[in-house]
């Protein structure tokens, strides 16, 4: 079970509280997790990655296990603790402003 922590704006949009938990076929990657997330919550389409190119939006970041996964290719397998559910995958709105 993959655990995902969404930023508050997207939790409100998707009308979820707390973490989202998704069952994803191995190997779990950013692409497969986001596909599953958008399939369950279609309203999130376009908010994390572009509708057409499916590229990550510029001010969205992916963190897990104290690592920034934002620049990893989307088909890179996620870290083991994320795959087992020991650690969540964080979807984060990047810092902006001063």
């Amino acid at each position: 079970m993959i655990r995902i922590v969404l930023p508050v704006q997207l939790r409100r949009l998707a009308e979820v509280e707390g973490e989202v938990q998704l069952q994803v076929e191995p190997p779990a990657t950013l692409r497969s997790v986001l596909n599953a997330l958008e399939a369950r919550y279609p309203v999130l389409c376009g908010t994390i990655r572009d509708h057409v190119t499916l590229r990550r939006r510029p001010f969205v970041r992916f963190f897990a296990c104290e690592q920034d996964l934002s620049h990893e290719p989307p088909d890179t397998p996620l870290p083991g603790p994320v795959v087992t559910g020991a650690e969540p995958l964080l979807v984060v709105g990047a810092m902006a402003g001063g």
Partner: protein
Amino acid sequence: MSEVRLLVGTRKGAFVLTSDGKRQRWDISGPHFAGWEIYHVKGSPVEPNRLYASQSSGWFGQKIQRSSDGGQTWEAVGDKFVYEGSPGTHQWYDGTQRPWEFKRIWHLEPSLADPDAVYAGAEDAALFRTTDGGRTWEELSGLRNAKGRLWSPGAGGMGLHTILLDPSRPGRIFVAISAAGVFRTDDSGGTWRPMNRGLKSPYELPDPDVEVGHCVHRIALHPSRPGVLFMQKHWDVMRSDNAGESWHEVSGNLPSDFGFPTEVHAHEPDTIYVVPIKSDSEHFPPEAKLRVYRSRTGGNEWEALAKGLPQSDCYVNVLRDAMAVDSLDPCGVYFGTTGGQVYASADAGDAWKPIVRDFPAVLSVEAQTLP
């Protein structure tokens, strides 16, 4: 008794303000979509409880929300705004050509006849249309053939911010685009022509009366006389008496002819409103006095309307979509400021009162008159 509903978009959410026909006491609901920029909220003229809202974020992109109960509840609808075909390029600040790139929806204009049909004005400038209540959107791409490659973003972005539907000619639509100008279609969006003859921009453009490139801030018309248009340009207040074929200046005795919104009185087609702003670099009122100016002669002769508005130390701006009128008698006039105030006048602008003083910066105000 009639009711007035104001739809207020702000930098951090949407608010719905309602009052009875006296327009003295207001109920406030919101923020809806807290934390998101709400560029615009507007209701269908044929089904007033059907509202559409543009919800956007620099982080999370564009959403479109729809309400069927006057803003009490909302549902996200389609937000896939894809330019048709290969969108080509437009001029960039450094003179190079840059591909069109969708950023946000600035303005939503519901159809005059069909509550499921809505036009949406986008940045980078384009016009989209839905005919299924917002589920899907298609671009009216002929607009970009009107010399789109010569359009260039201004400091505020290359947004299509004004959409006027001509009630007497269903195929006629006017749009205005920052740093591009006014464009008109007479065939429901198939073909478009620039409508900028008479505009002069000597301080912004190397050729002051070029066909496209003028920074039009807002245009307005009265539904009973749609051939007459009023414009607040970057500098200059302008008027057209031939559906945009040509324009002439009507700034007259205004203390500054820079500004953003312009509106027309609901019952008097020659009574118009602007909010003068000191200059393009000083986006606050002249003399730090917030004054709406009203012309009852369709321009040139203006009177200051200051009663109830701050007359010292006022440094707010009023953005292009942040002024509206209701259709009661006397006509109500409303505007919101970048300082978060929403002011109301129940007597056509003679006197003003703040409805709220501490909203986030106001991006848009629309007024609905309900039976």
